């Protein structure tokens, strides 16, 4: 269970990779990954390709990220969730709130 962040394209894109189980124990780490990001009008990509499972507090953390993105004009993109994780996003109808790239 880790959160990694990577700056790409001359710091104009922020990628956040959540490895393993995405739950409340990552609350602080996940927040730390974007909270000091100063770029405006650029994408924040939440890469879920390595995420095995996600609970409702993870959905809550994504909503906090969305709130941050809305405030700073960052487009939030959720990338490559596995089947289990995508099912959770689907039940929560998150594709109606955020861009999800399968």
């Amino acid at each position, binding site marked *: 269970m880790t959160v990694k962040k990577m700056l790409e394209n001359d710091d104009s894109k922020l990628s956040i990779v959540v490895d393993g189980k995405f739950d409340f124990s990552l609350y602080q780490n996940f927040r730390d990954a974007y909270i000091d990001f100063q770029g405006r009008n650029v994408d924040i990509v939440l890469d879920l390709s390595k995420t095995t499972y996600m609970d409702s507090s993870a959905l*809550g953390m994504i909503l906090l990220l969305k709130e941050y993105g809305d405030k700073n004009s960052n487009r939030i993109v959720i990338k490559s969730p596995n089947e289990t994780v995508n099912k959770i996003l689907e039940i929560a109808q998150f594709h109606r709130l955020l861009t999800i790239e399968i």
Partner: protein
Amino acid sequence: MTAVGTMLDNKLALVVDDSITQSRVLSHLLTEEGYQVISAVNGLDAFEKYVKYQPDLVLMDINMPVMNGYDAARKIKNHSNHDALCPLVFITNESTDSAYIKSIEAGGDGILVRPFSHQVFKAKIKSIQRISDLYSQLKRLQQEQDTDAKIAEKLMSGVIEARNFGLDRIGTVKKAAALFSGDIQLSALCPNGDVNVLLGDFTGHGLRSSIGALPLAETFRAMTGKGFSLLEIITQINTQLFNLLPADLFLAATFVTVSSHEESIYILNAGLPDAYVFSEEGAIKHKIASSHPPIGVVSTLLSDTQVSVVSVHSSDRVILLSDGIVEARNKLDQMYDYQRFERAVIKGIDRGDVCRNVLASVESFCQGMEQEDDISLVDIPCDGWQQNYALASQVDDSVLGENLTSIYRGLPPVWEWRLSLTGKSLATVNPIPIVMNQIYAIEGDKEHWLSLQTILTELFVNSLDHGVLGLSSDLKVSPEGFSEYYRERKSRLKCLDSGFVDILLEYYPLTSGGRLKVIIKDSGNGFDVVELFKNNVELPDSDMTLYGRGIELVEQLAESLEYFDDGRTVEASYLWAK
């Protein structure tokens, strides 16, 4: 005073050593550190004194007669309650790895190897005391948290869910992962006899997830009781939770109205796993998937939000579940999942107890694995929800003690109140709660107004549907027809830009009661109430008719009911005794 105070504040140390000299030296050093000291001469003696005095620190020699230090340590650690940590330090001459390992394995919290200086000894005691202080601080915080959670749990089950309606008929399962569950189950009776049920899952578990439960329950009950539609209730709850909760706290929930007399359910799933309609043979008739993000995520419901209308048979059951069931895991990290769940429900229907069967199935699948999420299930039968309201007792002259006819004629009402809805407002405003609020405001909130509310609701809906919208009841002849009727009604409401419904109330007080006259006019082409409802279809196994039941009910509740002007005006009089 100070002396006693110091005595009470002093920590108590137990020194265990068969050598009196050694014991004295250690006791002396501990006294210098502010401890009170008692001593024991062997392991057994130590254990007995430990039990008797409950010291804050134990210093333990290893080789002693009767019982050695390791055995005594094990006995002490087994005995001590885990609310307080009493650190136990071994004092030994043996500076070997095995002595060190054996000490820790016996439950020791540290080891001091002779020879050591007085300074080292005192430093060791200080460090071990620091850990013990942290431990008790942690314990205290944990206890406070437990107490808070217990209060919240009591509030939830005792205050919120104990007020649920129809629990003798609605089956529920609720197993919390933490002491306090983030899942909430609510049920309440609508004025027309339908029942509203909610299964909700707040983000996370424990106390944190409970913040929204109270306002949710209040709003759900109050609005259901006042006759608001399901969508109106959901809209209000969404706004309320959005404003109340931080961004990462929300409510995944399924809302359902079960209407026995319409043989339909109205349902919206916002963020929960599929809800089910099962037939009595155990076939899955419908699955209602989530069609909206959880409640409290967006500031207003998404614009295309729709409550689904599903035709049901009276022997069908509606099953709602939270994700805790399908995501329950066993030792092999497999999920319980939907297939097992569906099989368990089918078996449960066969055996006549869905809840018990599903719970037993989940438990046998998990085989004692610790439950990670709250588990919640609601099982609602589709029949038997009609006419649960108390019909007003018959009121006549003898009850009121006066001649009604003579008092009624020619006297003006003491108050009258009018509400006109035109065009679009007919599609967006539900006038019944507004009218009822008006009556409550003037005449007070009384139980018997429920009957009046039923009269108002039935008459208004008739005027709107058959008058303004020109819908024919023929559509409702078949059970499937009800959802078609509802769809047609919805589409006509959407393009409505003219027409009106006018509601007038006139109030006449009587010595020991009162009379309320309701006059409703509409802009439609009129309808023949007799013609409209003459084809009432008697259903087999039921004394109910699919439509026209509303008018029958009004006739029972009202003192008089008359249609004028080809059905464009209806006048009902409602009488009550104090």
